[in-house]
């Protein structure tokens, strides 16, 4: 497989791409004819009205759902028929719209679970738990990066909603994914965390591709390089935020009169 | 004389499971009756009866058996319903040099390959049931058979034994169907049996399976249609549960029938007063086994196993159960069996008056020749 692109490369590489993506649920078509290119070192936003098919596109890309038509390519490999765990191991990791942590594990363990796999510490049933201690430095780094150091030993269940989302991001980052798919990372988050997470995403994207669904338009305006607008399962507009937000179709379908 | 100042007999059987009606707690009463009838003492020491419920689990049974022998000075264990339990306990008794007398289990293995010099098989076995029902019924005109067989070793051996006697006596077997253990519905099998046109439908199964098959046979009008039902392992207790309405006309073999003669009636009456039911061959068999054991201790003048066992092998049996019985070298008690037929409700004169005795099968015909049993104690 090709070596990962150097940061600062002038023409960013396409790392994840979809062609002619379609998904039917019975007679209802949730996604149709979607072409999408996600680039290295860029934050790419997927926006659109509720029910436009954003989450469905995510599910298709990560293979939690099988597309009815179309192909998906990750880092040059066709993954249209690959199971989801395999896709994750290839470097495409997602977060969920409804928060997903391991509630009865501590914050540290949440992150370590993610670190175990790339470090080949997952199947070893004959080694003591202390074998995991060598992951602690990296885990603490990640925990610090998202500002959860104080809660390091708390159970994830005891965290507030916003903190859980932050933890989820730390866990996702632990896999050192090449492509990160974030489904409404800011939803339900207090303003103070929105800033933090925006910063994290920006930093992360320096040497990764990020695709995110977000309804918080100020976030989209601030951190996304590229925006795709979806409506009724089809691409309505594409471009940078400034272009897209001026598009009258987008304004009626999605943004309303509200100013970002 | 008695080694520990006491003779202790253990009645180990199923008291809460499928075979609880077969023997159960009532057998414990039967054993106590035997002790009382003997006078409560032997060799001037008191006789005690203990009992336990093995829950049909061989491991519980063997645990109890070992504990009884090792720590509670039990001298002999009796009844032992269910073959797996009987075989397991007989092996332990052999190892510990103690006496066991099986009245509850049917397998001929007990006096065959797995026989023991101290093990006895008292009331009945699969062979005697087969001879009784299979052989005798052919003579009564039931010369073509169809078997409904429970699909496991016990069922096969009942069917095979019976079929042999049917053929030996000039009958034919026109077919058979194997049904899974614990089938609730037999109508499909009964229909197959019905259309076979056989004169006798042999039920080579046990317990609830047999009851359900009989009940459904009456529903489908099989007996009314002129066919005969023969249950290969069925006793008074189960007939009582089924009721005469459903069971009428059924043929079966037992080693005892309470309404046989005055002696048996007298015994049964006493038993009924204590337990609320009439005895079947298991209850009476256990009574007889205890009584004979005490007689043997008396005769040997000690409770030492070898001596008692020798006496048991030598002494003729003569009580309400085993009249004219003898004990063979493989431990098989050989006595007469009875071919019985369930009465019509109208013909039953009193409660528990259920059977007509069709035939008496002499012990020597009923039981397997010890020389052919495969037991290496028989020379």
């Amino acid at each position, binding site marked *: 497989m090709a070596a990962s692109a150097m940061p600062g490369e002038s023409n960013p590489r396409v790392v994840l791409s979809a062609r002619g993506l379609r998904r039917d649920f019975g007679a209802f078509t949730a996604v149709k004819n979607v072409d999408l290119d996600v680039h290295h070192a860029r934050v790419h936003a997927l926006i659109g009205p509720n029910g436009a098919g954003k989450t469905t596109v995510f599910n298709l890309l990560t293979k939690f759902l099988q597309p009815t038509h179309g192909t998906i390519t990750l880092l040059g490999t066709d993954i249209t028929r690959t199971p989801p765990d395999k896709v994750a191991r290839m470097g495409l990791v997602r977060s969920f719209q409804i928060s997903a942590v391991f509630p009865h594990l501590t914050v540290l363990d949440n992150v370590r679970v993610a670190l175990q796999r790339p470090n080949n510490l997952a199947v070893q049933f004959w080694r003591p738990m202390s074998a995991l201690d060598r992951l602690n430095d990296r885990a603490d780094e990640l925990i610090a990066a998202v500002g959860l150091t104080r809660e390091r030993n708390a159970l994830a269940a005891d965290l507030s909603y916003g903190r859980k989302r932050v933890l989820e991001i730390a866990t996702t980052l632990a896999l050192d994914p090449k492509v990160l798919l974030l489904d409404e990372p800011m939803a339900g988050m207090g303003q103070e965390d929105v800033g933090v997470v925006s910063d994290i995403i920006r930093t992360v994207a320096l040497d990764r591709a990020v695709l995110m669904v977000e309804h918080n338009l100020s976030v989209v305006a601030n951190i996304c390089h590229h925006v795709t607008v979806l409506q009724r399962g089809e691409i309505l507009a594409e471009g940078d935020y400034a272009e897209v937000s001026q598009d009258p179709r987008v304004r009626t379908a999605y943004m309303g009169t509200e100013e970002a | 004389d008695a080694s520990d100042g006491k003779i202790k007999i253990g009645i180990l059987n199923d008291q809460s*499971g499928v075979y609880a009606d077969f023997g159960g707690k009532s057998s414990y009463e039967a054993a106590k009756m035997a002790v009382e009838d003997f006078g409560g003492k032997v060799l001037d020491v008191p006789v005690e009866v203990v009992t336990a419920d093995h829950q049909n689990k061989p491991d519980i049974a063997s645990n109890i058996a070992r504990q009884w022998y090792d720590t509670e000075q039990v001298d002999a264990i009796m009844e032992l319903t269910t073959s797996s339990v009987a075989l397991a306990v007989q092996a332990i008794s052999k190892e510990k040099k103690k006496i066991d007398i099986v009245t509850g289990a049917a397998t001929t293995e007990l006096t065959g390959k797995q026989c023991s010099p101290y093990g006895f098989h008292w009331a009945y076995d699969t062979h005697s049931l087969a001879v009784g029902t299979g052989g005798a019924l052919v003579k009564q005109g039931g010369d073509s058979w169809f078997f409904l067989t429970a699909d496991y070793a016990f069922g096969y051996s009942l069917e095979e034994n019976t079929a042999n006697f049917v053929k030996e006596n000039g009958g034919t077997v026109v077919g058979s169907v194997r049904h899974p253990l614990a089938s609730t519905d037999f109508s499909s099998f009964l229909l197959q049996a019905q259309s076979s046109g056989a004169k006798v439908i042999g039920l080579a199964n046990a317990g609830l399976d047999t009851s359900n098959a009989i009940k459904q046979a009456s529903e489908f009008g099989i007996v009314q249609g002129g066919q005969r039902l023969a249950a290969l392992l069925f006793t008074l207790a189960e007939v009582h549960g089924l009721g005469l309405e459903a069971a009428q006309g059924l043929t079966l073999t037992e080693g005892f029938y309470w309404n046989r003669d005055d002696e048996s009636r007298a015994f049964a009456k006493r038993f009924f007063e204590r337990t609320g039911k009439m005895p079947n061959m298991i209850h009476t068999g256990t009574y007889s086994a205890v009584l004979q054991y005490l007689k043997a201790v008396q005769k040997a003048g000690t409770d030492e196993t070898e001596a008692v066992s020798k006496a048991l092998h030598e002494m003729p049996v003569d009580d309400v159960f085993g009249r004219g019985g003898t004990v063979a070298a493989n431990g098989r008690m050989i006595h007469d069996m009875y071919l019985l037929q369930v009465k019509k409700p109208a013909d039953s004169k009193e409660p528990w008056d259920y059977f007509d005795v069709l035939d008496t099968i002499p012990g020597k015909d009923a039981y397997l020749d010890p020389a052919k049993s495969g037991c290496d104690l028989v020379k």
Partner: protein
Amino acid sequence: MTTIFGIPLAALFGQLLIGLINGSFYALLSLGLAVIFGLLRVINFAHGAQYMLGAFVAYLLLQYIGIGYWPALIVAPLIVGAFGALVERFLLSRLYNLDPLYGLLFTFGMALAIEGTFRYFYGASGQPYAPPALLTGGTNLGFMFLPNYRGWVVVVSLIVCIGTWLLIEKTKIGSYLRAATENSTLVQSFGINVPMLLTLTYGLGAALAAFAGVLAAPIYQVSPLMGSNIIIVVFAVVVVGGMGSIMGAIITGYVLGVAEGLTKVFYPEASNIVVFVIMAIVLLLRPAGLFGRDG
């Protein structure tokens, strides 16, 4: 004579009919199980015991108060249903916010205790119960002799199955119940008395089992063991149908009854595992069961 695989066609019809009759029991029992599971998320291990209770209550009613089959068909399910409702109200309801496995374990214990009690007092070999005079005898259908009572069983169980299905899938009460399974507190916050509904549901499930029990009493020996013999097969039926799907449970009940009936002719040794074999195959192809929603 026309034959199929060596079996006369007429006999085959007979076997099909018998399969259908057995299927009626499976359908009735799995229906009650599916109702309880679908709405309370409780695997009712005591279902077999409640079926047995139905038959026993009918027997006891006849024995001690002289109440015969027809009234018993109503009275026994009412008694058992009321008993079920009490159990739900005071015991089972404490387990709802826990892992559903606790419901299964609780009812398992209850099944043991009920069965043990009856075995203790009535022994294992069972009690007689005669079919009602009106339905004794049978009809010669040409290809087989159909006992009238069996015909009645097929008809009445079909009616009850469909009635229950309509009640649950097509009425408002049904949608309350289905919603309450998912999030009982929220439904309560809408102003619906969910605890009461659940109590009634469990009562209904138990009553359905008891109804099947009364129907069975004249056919099968009324024995404490009759429930545990049939219940595991019924579980398999419900798994094949797709747990929680009520129509699925009914249809699968009949279909597997017939499948089992045919196996009894062609390969009788396998007749009591055929249901499990079908289950394994169905699970391989359709993990949620034939009619299951995923879950």
